[in-house]
């Protein structure tokens, strides 16, 4: 499957989304990313039992942080997909890109 | 007139006022209060009724105040924040007003450690500053702290205490300013023995223009003996008794010490009367109410005005 997805999405691989911490998401925003999303396994299908559920809660926490400082919480998202769903991966990349484009560039980048 | 109490009338008329003090008994014996009232009636403009002073359990200030009213003496209800939370504070204010109380002195209260129940839990939900604000809000806005509209606002003449002799001295005048901002109509000070320091504090208050907006009454307590003077100097926190006072009392025979103490008190009243910004004196003759008539007489403050 040679599926194309927007080139502006930079993929950082982790063994499990349970490894993704709050600080990682914040760092991406701090360094100027317009948006960050976590692509995890389907709920209930985590190889480490609950990694993706933990990631979901951390994404929620970061959304709250952004809200508290007056930024759009939608710049951070959690998506779930199975590793066999290539087309879904590409679709999510497009969906998130569209959503972020609609929000415009991150004020962190444009104001500093 | 904010409350229309006798004290407010005398002060507003620009007459040098005098208030007395009545410590309720450690028991339910109303006669003690009636007895004290006899010496105070007609000799002072209003009488402070202490609220479990030094955290020693006594008949309630409200109870004793009502007895004074029955005796034809206007009470100044002292209320501390030590023993009641904001619910009890507000409720007691409403009850007091309904029963005829028109003056209140708002205090934080001595810590219970000094009293006869050092094991008691303390409350201090509000402090004196917030207590003043509470009474003012209830009087002027007719609401409770939470904004609830009252059916009948308690029109109190609001008093507070000030101690120019506590530390740090530089801050004392600002604390007074805060109390005035909070809503105090009159101020009664701690007993004055160090007139020099008191004068310095009054000068500061005058310089800041504070005494144009409040009636300041200087506190005077006659010494009964050298022993009392030494006790006040060494064991009462925030009390400033210069050595000259003690020496002066020591300089007369033991039997004349009380007379000398009264003489000092009268001299202090005369000095206060000359001071700019002083609206009156608060005479605290502690467990010595029977000497109040002669002190007021000697101070040349009789008869008291009837307004």
């Amino acid at each position: 499957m040679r599926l194309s997805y927007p080139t502006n999405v930079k993929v950082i691989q982790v063994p499990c989304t349970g490894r993704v911490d709050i600080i990682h998401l914040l760092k991406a925003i701090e360094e100027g990313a317009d948006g960050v999303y976590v692509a995890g396994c389907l709920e209930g299908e985590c190889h480490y039992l609950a990694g993706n559920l933990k990631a979901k809660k951390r994404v929620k926490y970061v959304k709250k942080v952004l809200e508290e400082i007056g930024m759009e919480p939608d710049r951070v998202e959690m998506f779930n997909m199975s590793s066999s769903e290539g087309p879904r991966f590409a679709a999510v990349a497009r969906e998130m890109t569209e959503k972020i484009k609609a929000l415009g560039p991150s004020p962190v980048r444009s104001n500093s | 007139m904010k409350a229309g109490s006798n004290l407010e009338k005398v002060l507003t008329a620009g007459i040098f006022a005098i208030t007395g003090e009545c410590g309720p008994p450690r028991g339910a014996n109303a006669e003690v209060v009636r007895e004290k009232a006899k010496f105070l009636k007609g000799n002072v403009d209003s009488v402070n009724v202490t609220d479990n002073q030094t955290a020693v359990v006594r008949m309630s200030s409200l109870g004793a105040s009502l007895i004074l009213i029955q005796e034809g003496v206007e009470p100044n209800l002292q209320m501390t924040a030590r023993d009641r939370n904001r619910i009890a504070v507000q409720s007691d204010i409403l009850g007091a007003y309904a029963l005829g109380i028109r003056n209140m002195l708002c205090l934080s209260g001595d810590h219970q450690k000094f009293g006869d129940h050092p094991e008691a839990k303390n409350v201090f939900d509000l402090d004196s500053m917030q207590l003043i604000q509470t009474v003012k809000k209830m009087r002027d806005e007719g609401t409770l702290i939470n904004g609830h509209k009252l059916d009948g606002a308690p029109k109190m003449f609001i008093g507070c205490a000030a101690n120019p002799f506590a530390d740090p001295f530089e801050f004392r005048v600002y604390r007074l300013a805060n109390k005035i901002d909070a809503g105090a109509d009159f101020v009664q000070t701690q007993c004055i023995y160090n007139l020099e320091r008191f004068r310095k504090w009054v000068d500061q208050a005058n310089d800041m223009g504070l005494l144009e907006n409040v009636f300041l009454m200087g506190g005077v307590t006659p010494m009964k003996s050298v022993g009392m003077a030494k006790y006040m100097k060494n064991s009462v926190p925030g009390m400033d008794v210069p050595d000259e006072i003690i020496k002066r009392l020591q300089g007369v025979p033991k039997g004349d010490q009380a007379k000398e103490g009264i003489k000092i008190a009268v001299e202090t009243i005369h000095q206060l009367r000359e001071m700019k910004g002083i609206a009156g004196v608060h005479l605290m003759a502690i467990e010595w109410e029977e000497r109040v008539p002669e002190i007021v007489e000697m101070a040349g403050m009789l008869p008291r005005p009837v307004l």
Partner: protein
Amino acid sequence: MIVGERKPLGDILDMIKDYKKVLVVGCKGCVTVCNVGGEKEVGILASSIRISRKKDGNEITVDERTLERQCDPEYVDQLKDIVSDYDAMVSIACGVGPQFLAERYPDAAVYPGINTQFMGGALEHGVWAERCQGCGACLVHNFGGHCPIARCSKSLLHGPCGGSSGGKCEISKDVDCVWHLIVEKLAKQGKMDSLRKLVPTKNWSTSRDGGPRKVVREDLKL
């Protein structure tokens, strides 16, 4: 442990709005264990502050430091060479931390980043509950190992009151009636008799009511 909660970010940002260089100081004690003031949380707070200030085009330098403890002078002392490099410090230790920092560094502007809540323990991961109020005279052994001072809303020594319902307190269905627990426990142990005794009035002078407290151990003093 002492349990706290982070202050709203808006409050913290407001405290330091005039500063350009700030040190966030964490503590490896209680607040690390309850995930509110350790090294990790220092990083999160520092990053959040930087994001917010970059967003507003008002950049700030936020450095991070986590001390072994903020309640011991020897660790607080470790900041002595760098304190003057900063306009302000935000301590995310319990309320002791910012005070020890401010006492040790009288010229520094010190701000608290968390609200200290209580002495308690973890009921499960992410849930903490109050267990002790530091009354200075422990009596949990009289109450089946439960403290009615800290856990009864009215601190009753003779409960449960008339507001106890279905094991819950009248103030909220989320609050256990500790007296319900006490009765249950003592009933199970066959010690209900002990609840038929009247407890004398408590001496609160050993608690905060007696004034600020201090513990002195002569055997440990240097």
